[in-house]
């Protein structure tokens, strides 16, 4: 992959991947840093990236793993050792309804959340999600089904004075 090709990939997909990882982990700054770091690693391993059928998926998966790895380290009370590129980011806030949606997503089990994000936000077909995560297609379908149902309930609760913070008329 040449520099200009990488730059084009970065410009075209950075925001998209960041919103996907944000939906997966619920922290926009963390998502931004992890996606940056994933792109840096992608450039460092560009030969590998050349062979990847879906470079964007490679970067998304790397960013997601970085985020999970960071979260684990934080849980262990350790300082992250994988430094993001440059100083800490200060990402602009997203729309309030998006915050509510992400808050609802965070209440879902990780596997369901990941399936929902990849299918409905990343717009990946089920067979590709299965390949990316490494589970059978049937499992993905089940996770999507359960995830949609759970999300609908969570967002209904939200409307009734829950996550969105609106006044309850009950």
């Amino acid at each position, binding site marked *: 992959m040449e520099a200009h090709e990488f730059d084009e990939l970065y410009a075209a997909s950075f925001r998209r991947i960041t919103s996907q990882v944000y*939906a997966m982990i619920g922290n926009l700054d963390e998502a931004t840093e992890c996606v940056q770091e994933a792109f840096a690693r992608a450039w460092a391993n560009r030969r590998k990236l050349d062979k990847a059928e879906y470079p964007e998926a490679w970067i998304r998966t790397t960013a997601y793993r970085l985020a999970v790895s960071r979260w684990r380290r934080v849980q262990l009370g350790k300082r992250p050792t994988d430094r993001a590129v440059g100083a800490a980011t200060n990402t602009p806030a997203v729309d309030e309804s998006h915050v509510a949606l992400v808050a609802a997503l965070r209440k879902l089990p990780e596997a369901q959340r990941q399936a929902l994000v990849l299918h409905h*936000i990343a717009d990946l077909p089920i067979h590709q999600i299965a390949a990316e995560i490494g589970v059978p297609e049937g499992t993905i379908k089940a996770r999507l089904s359960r995830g949609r149902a759970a999300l609908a309930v969570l967002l209904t609760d939200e409307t009734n004075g829950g996550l969105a913070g609106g006044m309850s008329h009950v």
Partner: protein
Amino acid sequence: MSDPIDKLTRLGDALEGAPMPLPASEIRARGDRIRRRKHALVAGASAAVVAAVAVPVVALTVGNGSDDPDNLAPQPSITDPVPAAALSVENLITADDAAWNEVGTEFEVSETYPGDGQAPPSPCFQSSFAGLGAETVFQRDFRWKLQTSGTDIGPQLNEIIGEFASPEDALTAYNEIQGWYDDCRPPGAERFEAGEFAPVPIPVDGQGAQMLATYGPVDEELDPFGDEGWFLDTGLVVSGDRVAVVTALSHGQDYNGQPPPAAEMLPAAAERLVRGNGVGDEPAEGDWPTTIPDDFPLDSGFPTDDGSSGFDPADPSEDNEALLPGGDLQECQQIDNPDAVDRLTTRLTTNESYYARELQLFADDEEARSYLDSIQDAYSACEAESPDYEVDFTGDSPDAPSRLDIRWSDGAGRQVIIVSQVGNSVLVAIESDESGSGAAGDIDRMWVGVAEGLATLLDAVTDLQTGAYASPTEGADPNLDEPAGTTTIPDDIPLDVDMADMGSDGEFHTPYRPDATETGLTVDLCGQSVWPVADTVDRLWAWATGPEYGDRRELVTFATVNEAVAAVEAIRVALQDCSSEDSTVWTVTDILTGYDSVTFSRTYTNGLGKDDFQATRVGNAVLLVHRYGEGSISGVEEGAQDRTDVTTAIAPSLCVFTVDGC
């Protein structure tokens, strides 16, 4: 209630239009650093370092004053362009390399410093080296020893070198610098004539080029008859991820540097750039380092104190118990007790992990290798006894680093040990935890983490071997966030230089400190106010007006240099997003002042009127000069030159606001 799936789908567009936090070039630069470090660790790129220390290198014959191309041709035995150590002042040419008429006799070193200087090394530079992307920069200025005139300092010579994130970035910078000379217009110059950069053979892998340009006029003080010109002789080298620029500047009627000094110095500059001064020579008996500095950053990259009760560090010290008697190294077979000449040991215990590092210096490289062999034998015995061990040795050749990787994982815990030998030093790094997972992926992840964490430390070990090690506090760049030394503006700043007095047709005010209520210059760029700037410390103000005439100069100081940097940068950023508003047109002019400046003009599409602005930072001070007149967009370049003349007349007196002067 809206469909949650619709909401999900829209979330994918949540960040569309949001600014990109970092440009792609910075991401690639980070990627290149990752790759280089991985290569250095895993594939043994430190080979050149060890080779430099332990292996004879064929001596080079360069820079001997001959212009015979055969003498300058790359030596076939020199094939490794990998620099022997981190870029340092050792990679600059010395007075012995400096050439004019006779190599090594006419110049002496005036000053050597890290980073870009306050003034550019060449009047054609359009950016600092750091601005080009160099991660490390050094500059050396030379003084002409044969000065005979009180006013003429003689030929001027300097060299600037930089290390970039990758060879690609260095090559890009090398080409970009050459482009600067295509449209160069030194301050005050009325003409500039440049040829093409011509290739110059260099004795290392890379490229060299030289070009002689002329411009004028020469200052009347130096050239009272007006028949001289400036001769700008420039030599460039790129090798690997490094770039050097040698600049020789002189004035006269005819050019009498034969051959051009830059071309003459370039082979030496190329060799220094790659190999440094003396680096590459085989150390003589007794040349091995024998002392580890007390401030050696052995614990660099260790987790920082998180306030938990389990955080228990033992800071680097020779008083800490050594790893071997401390039981940190498993002895499936006895490890010979090393007879080190110096040692530094550090440990850290956290709630979940254990870290230990030890650096030892031995009498020579053979003893160091013997210690590593002993550790390898011991762990190979462990590997033979238990499948939980994995021992890999790499670099078993005379010109490669010796490195031992030991990994152990039994499902209840894991441990990684990396032993690296560089010259007569052996560095042992240990990390272990009780993660409860014995998956291969987990031990691999820990191994990569330990290896990557050692990259910087191994650079320091290498520097220790080559004599290039500098204390972390020694020669460090000044902290630009620290309070500036001078914030009060001296009374004798010539802020009103060349300011016209219109007599009774206008007003004329020599420099004074206005009170807080008096408004000075105001600049709004598409609704964004960039001047005045908040939180200034001192302020000086001079102005004159007349019919269709306004000339205003305002000087402010800030508490820190970085605040001044931010003030100028804010103007640049605002201009990027503001080319026009209603009938107003903003035009940025690319003109050199020799300082950190931004020059811009305001004109109108529906009438005459032109404001020329130039903001210039010198240390923690920012000077904003302004001129208003009945002009149009066709006159912005002329206006920019006029403001540059004012700035360059005032700016030298502002050097009091810099740490080292201009």
